[in-house]
């Protein structure tokens, strides 16, 4: 029988941390790209894409992430793709993050006064130029604090990837807890790890939010 010291537990948890971070980064970058695309579609052809995009957002915000994970995992298998937990989790989190990011960034773009669109249209800027030179630079500043908040949410939610067998921080914690019979220590440490990841981000988010509010 192998015995685990607290140091062993800590070390094993530390080794699994990169996987949590990797999944978060994939979700954020993939989600960001998809969200930007959806946002552009919605802005460019409003009457055509407004409803489908809204339905997409509602679908992901109105259902549990746990079910989304199961659907993607079993859906990909049913469609005939050979899936690893990594692909399924990455795909699911990309879609999930994109829905939240689309909604947040849409709010930021809509917070830009209508006069800005009208003025830039009067200057004969094309749609692309309007976005690039007038709207997006302003929306970007507004969007930073809520986006940081979403990053925290994404990091925390990667813990659910456990259910499709993706071995990250929580899954490792589960396995160590089952092996050592010390669930109190192990889950406590796992929680502290997440806290160490998320708390600085949260602080940064609220600091940025205060700063943005003062500027306006």
């Amino acid at each position, binding site marked *: 029988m192998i015995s685990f010291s607290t140091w062993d537990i800590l070390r094993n948890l530390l080794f699994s941390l990169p996987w949590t971070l990797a999944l978060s980064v994939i979700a954020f970058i993939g989600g960001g790209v998809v969200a930007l695309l959806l946002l552009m579609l919605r802005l460019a052809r409003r009457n055509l894409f407004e409803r489908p995009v809204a339905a997409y957002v*509602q*679908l992901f*915000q*109105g*259902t*549990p*992430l*746990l*079910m*989304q994970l*199961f*659907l993607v995992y*079993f*859906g990909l298998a*049913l469609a005939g793709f050979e899936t690893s937990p990594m692909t399924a989790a990455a795909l699911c989190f990309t879609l999930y993050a994109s829905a939240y990011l689309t909604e947040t960034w849409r709010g930021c773009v809509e917070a830009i006064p209508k006069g800005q669109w009208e003025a830039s249209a009067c200057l004969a800027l094309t749609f692309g130029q309007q976005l690039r030179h007038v709207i997006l630079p302003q929306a970007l500043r507004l969007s930073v604090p809520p986006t940081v908040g979403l990053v*925290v949410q994404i990091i*925390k*939610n990667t*813990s*659910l990837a*456990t*259910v499709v067998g993706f071995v990250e921080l*929580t899954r490792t*914690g*589960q396995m160590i*807890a089952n092996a050592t019979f*010390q*669930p*109190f220590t*192990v*889950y*406590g440490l*796992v*929680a502290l790890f*997440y*806290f160490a990841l*998320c*708390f600085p981000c*949260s602080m940064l988010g609220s600091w940025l939010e205060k700063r943005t509010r003062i500027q306006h």
Partner: protein
Amino acid sequence: MLDFSSVLAAWPIFLEGLAVTVVLTVVTCTLGTLLGTACAWCRVHGPRAARVIVACYVEFFRNTPFIVQIFFIYFGLPAIGLRFASFPAAIVALTINLGAYACEIIRAGIESTPRGQLEAAQCLGLGRWHTFARVVLPPALSRVWPGLTSQLIIIMLATAVCSLISTAELSYVTNRIAAQTFRQFESYIIVTLLYLALSIGFRRLLQWLGPRFFFGCAPAGAGR
């Protein structure tokens, strides 16, 4: 390729799971909002020590995943002699989680109370309790109601995670049906649609409920 018949045949089991999810949601939302309000009061008016404790509680639970919290409560706490069955453990975990988020939301509402309101309440000779319950809280709730509604829906969706500690709610029974019928994808499609309907209905209900019962008379056009 998709065959829903064997999954749909299990509808009474879905219904049972749905009932447990609804009970879990209603109980937690009530308790969690009360806890959040109490904590918000503490953070604004409480003694210094209480403020610090509540701040730590809120930050800790807002910055760790719900799944780890529920595992800690269900698997970890028995080690120090606190043993829960899965249903009470789910209620405790959800309530504590919601309490932390609700505290921040409601606190924002309380802190945006115009000074004049407080002074007016003082002039009328209202005590601290009456001022809070009658003057500060109702308008504060009405200001943050949209945010609170979203949070309550998030907690409703989080009840799905309770299946991992074998609380027999909607996703738990779905896992069972999926295993029995070998129709995983179909089962999860059905249950996802159920959750979607539940969250849309729940949002409508809260939008209707709020103005009528929690913050006085409905403003024109509110709640539909």
